[in-house]
């Protein structure tokens, strides 16, 4: 429940609220940066993602370790299902970019 998924920031958006496009093992999703508003990441930075929100910035090395960790805990599939599901609110949207 509290496990966090690392993603690499690809692009920042400064609309009415800060968001970013992140890449998690090749899957790209828009996430919310509202909890990092005091210290916004830059493209290329890594963040830990929890329920669609970036919760902290981490180093690339720690991000890769965390990915390995999720795999070893057997939670990678659940994590990727979560990432793929972000922004998808209807069953028919699944699998679309």
């Amino acid at each position, binding site marked *: 429940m*509290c496990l*966090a998924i690392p993603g690499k920031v690809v692009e920042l958006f400064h609309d009415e609220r800060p968001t970013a496009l992140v890449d998690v093992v090749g899957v790209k999703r828009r996430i919310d940066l509202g909890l990092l508003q005091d210290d916004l990441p830059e493209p290329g930075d890594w963040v*830990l993602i*929890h329920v*669609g929100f970036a919760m902290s910035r981490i180093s690339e090395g720690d991000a890769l*370790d965390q990915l390995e960790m999720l795999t*070893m805990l057997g939670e990678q599939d659940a994590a990727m299902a979560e990432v793929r*599901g972000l922004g998808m609110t209807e069953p028919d949207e699944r699998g679309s970019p």
Partner: protein
Amino acid sequence: MKYVDEFREPALITRTVEEIKRLADTQRQYRIMEVCGGHTHAIYRFGLKDVLPSNIELIHGPGCPVCVLPMGRIDDGLSMAEDPSVIFAAFGDMMRVPGTHGSPLEHKARGMDIRIVYSPTDALKLAAKNPDRHVMFFAIGFETTAPSTALTLMRAKAEGIRNFSVFCNHVTIIPAIRAILDSPDMRIDAFIGPGHVSTVIGCRPYEWIARSERKPIAVSGFEPLDILQGIVMLLRQLRDGESKVENQYKRVVPWEGNRAALRVMAEVFQLRPYFEWRGMGFISQSALRINDQFAAWDAEHRFHIPGVRVTDPKAAQCGEVLKGVLKPAQCKLFATECTPERPVGALMVSSEGSCAAYFNYEHRKASTLTNISVPA
């Protein structure tokens, strides 16, 4: 199945285990509680119990939000969704949690409109897309998750989305630790502090445990080496008669926490006078409710909540397991009537619940694997 010797840096792990063996006084017992369910899962997954000296006992704490939610709250949430205009939205973790008349998934099979969302903002988006329906988001989680719910509520208010509400079941970790320490049948020597909760609250809130309760605490990461290093920190403190807060997980956890997250929580939530925890009873100031400025988005304000109270099935001993009084396998229902496939109690539902972790890694292993390898 992977064990610590297959993990990164086996040599460092071996050295850390050696250090633990040096530090652990063979004349005494150590009871160390890992508060967080993520740690419980990792401890079983990596077979850490098997590399520790036998006089170090790991007690599994209350840090699994699905596990500590009383069944009555699930019934309350489902009762709101009996109204056909309501869409019940929740994280996937909630879907198989049993209510009195079945889990959310079973209610879905009977025709209730129940959706899995991966973020509270997706529940809000669902409301924006379905203006003729009402979306009720069943919010659970500790301080890791509560700030995301808070920001979503601020957004609902800012954007004037009125057909959205949150059934708030967010709980806070510090009062649960206090309740454990106050419980007469508990004897804990030290705590492994939760990793991701602490990215939000920081390390300062634990200082009272160290100061007034004289218990060492080490906030730790989730890798085998993190947990073992946390145990080294605790054993050193116990050896030296110290009790302080140490941060093993500095690479992710700032001492002061995440101020932006704490700010949004303070804006949206206030403490409930008390809240019921499964297996632990009522704990004062242990949960969050939505404050009056956001009452229009508070499901407890908008709906009639029956306030169901359900005692756990008598034979299921979730409470004793949750408090560490019983081991999972000592429960009468363990692996017979209660399995991860057909859970009776919530500790069997989540992979972070101690019963599910024990079932998946100890019980199944007993029939398939007999040999645990310790890094040489």
